[in-house]
């Protein structure tokens, strides 16, 4: 249960203390972690994505069906039905096609809930504030962040699996050379983004975290909102701390995906951003 992230925080801490005392048990945990990683790779490699024509078939069938009049359902699916009370056929078809597309690449995005407008009332600041607040919350947990709380504890698996909603593997670099070890990665929610994932790294020596959120780049971020960065290979901007946004956030894009980066140790920010962007460029150039 520990390796599956099923224990509560107190139990997790107790288990980690026990594992430090018992090497064999720690070995079992490590085995299960590696087994999970390989199972994920094997099962996703065999059938990475759904056939292209399947989404089209589903859309066509949705359009051909006489839909019953339905009350707008509760929960997040209500936002897929744009009409006030009765399902508009075209809206439903379009919405379900969007849902189909997301699920067909394997991982469905978290529910698109009714986002409250952030302190700034704009998408860029809302997203930046959200990721900065998440980062600050993680950093305030005395630096003790449990890897078991993440869906993926191996970078390679995270890159392969979390890339599925985006239609391609992610190319997030190791930061070991900069003194940061990978903690974990999971799907998450970011305001105004229909899918998102979160990677967390921590300093090997001493406190300090790196948070990287990845979302589809649909032009939702105003890149003139912050200070432009000219020295990085992919450029980007820095959104300074402001009111509800407790940390600087660097935002950059590779043309398809947008990346929101938060680093506790300000001195490390340039190298971390450089390393991440260089890896993205190098991966884009690879066959």
């Amino acid at each position: 249960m520990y390796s599956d992230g099923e224990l509560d925080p107190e139990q997790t801490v107790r288990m980690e203390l026990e594992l430090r005392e018992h090497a064999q048990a720690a070995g079992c945990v490590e085995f299960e972690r590696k087994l999970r990683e390989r199972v994920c790779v094997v099962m996703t490699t065999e059938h990475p994505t759904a056939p292209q024509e399947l989404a089209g078939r589903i859309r066509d069938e949705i359009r051909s069906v006489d839909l019953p009049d339905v009350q707008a359902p509760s929960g997040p699916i209500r936002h897929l039905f744009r009409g006030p009370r009765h399902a508009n056929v075209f809206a439903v078809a379009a919405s379900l096609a969007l849902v189909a597309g997301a699920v067909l690449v394997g991982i469905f995005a978290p529910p698109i809930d009714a986002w409250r407008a952030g302190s700034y009332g704009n998408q860029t600041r809302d997203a930046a504030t959200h990721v900065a607040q998440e980062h600050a919350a993680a950093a305030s947990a005395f630096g003790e962040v449990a890897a078991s709380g993440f869906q993926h504890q191996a970078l390679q698996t995270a890159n392969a699996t979390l890339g599925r909603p985006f239609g391609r593997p992610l190319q997030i670099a190791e930061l070991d050379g900069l003194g940061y070890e990978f903690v974990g990665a999971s799907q998450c929610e970011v305001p105004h983004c229909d899918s998102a994932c979160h990677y967390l790294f921590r300093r090997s020596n001493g406190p300090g975290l790196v948070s990287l959120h990845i979302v589809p780049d649909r032009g939702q971020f105003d890149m003139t909102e912050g200070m432009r960065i000219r020295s990085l290979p992919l450029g980007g901007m820095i959104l300074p701390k402001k009111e509800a946004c407790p940390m600087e956030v660097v935002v950059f894009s590779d043309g398809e995906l947008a990346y929101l980066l938060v680093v506790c140790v300000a001195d490390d920010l340039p190298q971390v951003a450089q390393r991440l962007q260089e890896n993205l460029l190098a991966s884009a150039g690879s066959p």
Partner: protein
Amino acid sequence: MAVQLVRHPDEASDLVQETYMKALRVAERFEERGGGIRPWLFKILHNVFYTKLAKAKRDPMSVDELHGAPDDSPGPGDPSPAWNLQSLDWEHVDERLKDAIDHLRPEYRTVLLLWGVEGLKYREIAEIEDIPIGTVMSRLHRARSILADQLDDLAEETGRLGG
């Protein structure tokens, strides 16, 4: 998940299509429980698959086999397999692992997929499969034990060959 259930890409596409159509028809029944829409869709897919299977009594797994096959996998009370496979080369286990997964019973493979690939929690898997959480844990334990046994064999073979 559909491919893992039906083991055939075309049938998997049909299964996914039926799942979406059913989801559309029963959309008003969806209730948000904190896990989003994904577990709900998986549950519909699971139900559609097993309903078709029960009706058609098709290969690769009949209903009788599905529910009553003798279980020769290690149980919770059995000695644990050699989890500490220090000599195992993880870079070269995928073929053996794939073969072992292909030979798992569907209910073990499904739980393994939902746990290992989709990253779902026990509770979510239990809701999708409509089984108790304890059964989820049991099936997951057995699936992992079977895979570990296969890897244990691989480690032994590798050791004997000196590779």
